[in-house]
């Protein structure tokens, strides 16, 4: 996988739950565009206006804790985020992100080295996050080959589909 490059959107808060990423009143929605309309509405009503396609979300501890709702990944992906870097993440949210092919790097403390709009580069294989605007590099958790393979395939859906077709 090649490096992912984008501008940082900073959300330096802990325990940003799925209730904030995608509030419960919308969980019946299924259309990806409609789901994207409500991105991070529970943290900031106007969050959507901050995002441009290809941006990278940089977050604090336990990002995505809470519910199993997959829309909490779909909304970030469809709103335009190319990747998420966080100090730590909720378990189910992380698994959903892997399945849907939203690259996530767990990198403790990176959020403190970044300002909104900084140019960020992520190398998932090496587990490295680079802040090109500030000239800093941080080492996060390297990702297992098992998970890297899912990211490289764009999520688990295309992999399952080819598995089913090959039978």
């Amino acid at each position, binding site marked *: 996988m090649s490096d992912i490059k984008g501008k940082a959107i900073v959300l330096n808060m802990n325990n940003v*739950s799925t*209730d904030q990423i995608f*509030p419960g009143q919308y*969980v*019946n929605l299924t259309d990806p565009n409609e789901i994207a309309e409500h991105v991070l509405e529970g*943290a900031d009503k106007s969050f959507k206006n901050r995002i441009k396609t290809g941006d990278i979300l940089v977050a604090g501890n*336990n990002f995505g*804790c809470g519910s*199993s709702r997959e829309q909490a990944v779909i909304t970030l992906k469809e709103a335009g985020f190319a990747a998420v870097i966080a100090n730590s993440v909720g378990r189910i949210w992380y698994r959903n992100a892997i399945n849907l092919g939203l690259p996530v790097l767990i990198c403790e403390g990176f959020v403190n080295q970044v300002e909104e709009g900084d140019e960020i580069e992520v190398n998932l294989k090496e587990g490295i996050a680079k802040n090109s605007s500030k000239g800093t590099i941080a080492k996060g958790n390297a990702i297992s080959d*098992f998970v890297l393979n899912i990211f490289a395939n764009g999520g688990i859906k295309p992999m399952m589909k080819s598995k089913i077709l090959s039978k």
Partner: protein
Amino acid sequence: MPMHAIHKILAEKSGKQEVKAGEIVNAKVDIAGINDIYLTVLISYDDMGGGKVWDPEKIVFFFDHNAPSPTIKGASNQKVMSEFAREQGIKKIFKINEGICHSVLSESGLVKPGDIIIITDSHTTTLGAFGAFATGVGSTDLAVIMMTGELWFRVPEVINVKLEGTLKDGVMAKDIALHMLGELGTEFATYKVIEYSDSVVEKLSIDERMVLCNMSVEMGAKSTYIRPNSKTIEYVKSRSHAPFIVHETDPDFIYDKEYIFNLDNLLPQVSIPDSVDNARNIEEVEGISIDQVFIGSCTGGKLTDLEAAANILKGKKIAESVRLVVTPSSKEVLTKAIERGYYQTFLDAGAAITTPGCGACFGGHSGLIAAGEKCATTSNRNFPGRMGSIEAGVYLVSPITAAYTAITGKLNNPQYK
């Protein structure tokens, strides 16, 4: 190599002699459950090629979040799911009258020690109270199970939480869970299993054990485990004739971590906004004015919870300034609560009673709160916007504290004194 009971379940279901923490296994699933808010499951299923499901007997639909549906979209999702179930020969649909997935699944005898149970609801950790390996997943993971009957799991480490001592009057399992969150935070068990053991756990009722396991997901846990004792076996056998195996943890198994809590002096706890780990002793927050009290959810709407609240509310009226919403967790709880007179008690006290389901807890319907309001709730999360407006405050409490708070309109629980 010494193994934990949870590891033995994962080993058996993945056709291995032994497994160890950290390894990835593909395990066969006994029950795969889908909640009505997640039509995204069927969309993922379709995206991956669709076709016949692996085993219609092992797939369960729960119409619990939209019970009954507050929106056209919710009704439409249930309609599509019903049609899918009919086409696929899936007969286990718990409709809008049945209640919350974790309650109805255990009540209907579909949870047994040694099972692997996967549902699209994060609070599926609840079912570790029966010695099952149970966890919540997203829609796409569930769709994978529907196709193949299996899912990949990273074999989790196990944390042992020993609960010793004697609980004071007026202190419940919910207070233990909130206290643990206050002490250990929201991440100490991420990716891991929490086992609850020792004298307090042995004495707790099945309902109260379910509370500990339920709240464990707020500590990050992947699943939970309580070693089945005679209470568990009796409960399961009274509801199911299917055979099951109780795996024993090897005596020399090494836990990832061990925590010991002596609960002799534990006071009622309140987690204040906006995080589950903002736990306070009741004395620190006593007197805060509350606009709505909610007694319900998979955490705090079971028979034991309604009983605890009804005992306090009997012959009393709620404060003029407060509204009380009661939502039983299931039809069985509702029926028993009527038989025992709790419904009359709640009605006489001034409560609004709703259909069993998830409604207000996840901010869906049937008891949402306005900007500037405060809600004391027996449910499980208090993140901003969880129960309505993001400018509202949610206070997590036990059913006993909720009942006292409804009477005075202010946070309190004098029973421990």
